[in-house]
């Protein structure tokens, strides 16, 4: 019974983190048409920055978290202006610039903060519930934070002016520009929000697991998997497929040990991609 609760918590946390990352990736993809291969590196950088603020500089969590998110969002605006905007529609150079960003971020974090046994101290401690059914409070807090952020994102996309403008650009770029939407401003905003979501995911992951400079690579593959399975250009698909993927990654290791679960997951993705190339909720 304890194992089941453990698995369910893992599943919910993994799902929340995957969905946060994939939503950030999808924001950039839908606005600019860029496969942001640096998304994993941005996620990793956020974890490291938060570690720097909390552990090395001794800030409180309530100061360090917003500061990290704002810094990474600023990085997103910088990336949109100088790294993404010049290369819209040029796939080869997008790949090049994304790899360059990844190399710079990974090397910087590796040299600056190292790779050995680093994690953000958890901001809540203790155990919830009586012993056989107990979960750690930090995991519960992680999931609750992730869920609140996701609700905020849904409200942002569906209920605000900026969200409506983003949807308009996703549906029809020329039409949206003719209606007087400032494409570059909305794209910069989408990049900032996308990177901020990656930052939140990085902080949440950093409080539970150890940080490593190369954790972005593994995560990036899973994010790509989620976005492709959900279908390019679909927001609500990401939530459903994210839950399925989280369940798969928390559940399959219980049945098949070790890296074999990765094999199983990638083969399933390949087969789905073959049957339905546009993803579950894509339309093309």
């Amino acid at each position, binding site marked *: 019974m304890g194992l089941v609760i453990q698995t369910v918590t893992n599943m919910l946390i993994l799902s929340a983190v995957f969905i946060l990352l994939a939503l950030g990736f999808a924001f950039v993809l839908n606005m600019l048409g860029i496969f942001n291969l640096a998304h994993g590196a941005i996620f990793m950088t956020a974890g490291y920055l938060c570690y720097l603020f909390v552990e090395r500089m001794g800030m409180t969590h309530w100061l360090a978290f917003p500061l990290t998110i704002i810094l990474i969002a600023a990085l997103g605006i910088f990336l949109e202006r100088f790294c993404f905007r010049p290369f819209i529609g040029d796939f080869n*150079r997008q790949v090049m610039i994304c*790899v360059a960003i990844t190399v710079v971020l990974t090397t910087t974090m590796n040299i600056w903060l190292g790779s050995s046994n680093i994690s953000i101290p958890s901001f809540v401690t203790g155990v919830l519930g009586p012993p056989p059914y107990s979960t750690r409070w930090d995991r519960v807090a992680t999931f609750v934070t992730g869920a609140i952020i996701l609700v905020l994102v849904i409200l942002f996309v569906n209920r605000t002016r900026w969200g409506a403008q983003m949807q308009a650009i996703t549906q029809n770029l020329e039409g949206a520009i003719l209606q007087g939407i400032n494409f570059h401003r909305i794209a910069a905003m989408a990049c900032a929000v996308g990177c901020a979501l990656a930052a939140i995911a990085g902080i949440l992951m950093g409080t539970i697991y150890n940080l490593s400079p190369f954790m972005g*690579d593994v995560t990036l593959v899973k994010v790509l998997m989620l976005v*492709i399975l959900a279908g390019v250009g679909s927001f609500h698909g990401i939530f459903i497929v994210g839950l399925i993927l989280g369940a798969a990654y928390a559940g399959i290791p219980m049945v098949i040990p070790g890296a074999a679960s990765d094999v199983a997951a990638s083969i399933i993705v*390949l087969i789905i991609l073959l049957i339905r190339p*546009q993803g579950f909720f894509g339309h093309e």
Partner: protein
Amino acid sequence: MTGTQLSEFTGEKPVAKTRKWVKPAIPMGLIIIMAILPIFLGTSYMLHMLILTFVYIIAGVSFRTISISGQFSIAHAAFMGIGAYVAGMASKWLNWPPWLTMPMGAIAAMAIGMLFNYPFSRLRAIYYAMGSLFFGVVIINVISTGGDLTGGYSGLAGIHPIFIGSRVPYYYFFMGLALVSIIALYRFEFSRIGSTLKAIAQSHLVASSVGINESRYRILAVGVGSFFVGLVGAAYAHYNMVISPSSFNLGATLWICMYVLIGGINSFAGPIIGTFVLMLIPEFFRGLKIYAPYISAGILIIIVYLMPQGLVGLPELVRSWMARRRERKPVIHAA
């Protein structure tokens, strides 16, 4: 003498005549320089870097062969891994000689590449790229979970070498392999099949309408590309004697893409130039140690912003820049 007289008679410009032998002279000169280089390079580390450069030249050129058919395959290092592991396992567990295992690795990579592309050739553009990416992930995961047979994460050790002792025979072996592969892939690209592949890349609808079997040609392109990359992977396994999955993962594939894109994906010489630049220039800054990746990133950033066509487009860029300067000059004098 007769040449100039003939050119006067026919009205042909002698400049065109001299250029005819200049063009093949550049690669010939480069080959001769590369061939006598081991005499001057005493340190075997530099030889090792040059051997790796040859390995990645073959990988880059064969990547470009696949890409001229409009398929951006993000599994290229994984195909190299198939060749390396098939050859390595045959050498270690069955004690087969390298001259047998290397063609075997190449054929295995080709077969798996064609089998993969048989269903996947109906995906296009970014969906094909993503499909191949996941295929590469599957291959690396299968290798990593292979247990004792493949050595798992820590890698497969104890592969028999081709030559015992110095690295110099390896140098000439890999140089020969690179030359043969480059010539073969050059002939392939500028043959009728190559033109067909380029036609498919430009518009698959038009290509199908003139009777080109699109998926058959795309499978063929992947077959040829993965044959050569499997061959060089197998040779690399026999050279290095230890192979591990991390040399063939997504990161390795992306670096092969970088070698090609830096040189210029639209030109045959692109991957060769790009590999030389991105493999050897960071080596001059080896003293920087952990800061060395910044050099590679710096090269990438310079090229991505300043040279849209890659390094191959550099002469054209300089020429147009000079022409603009020459045009501007009288204006400045007048002012």
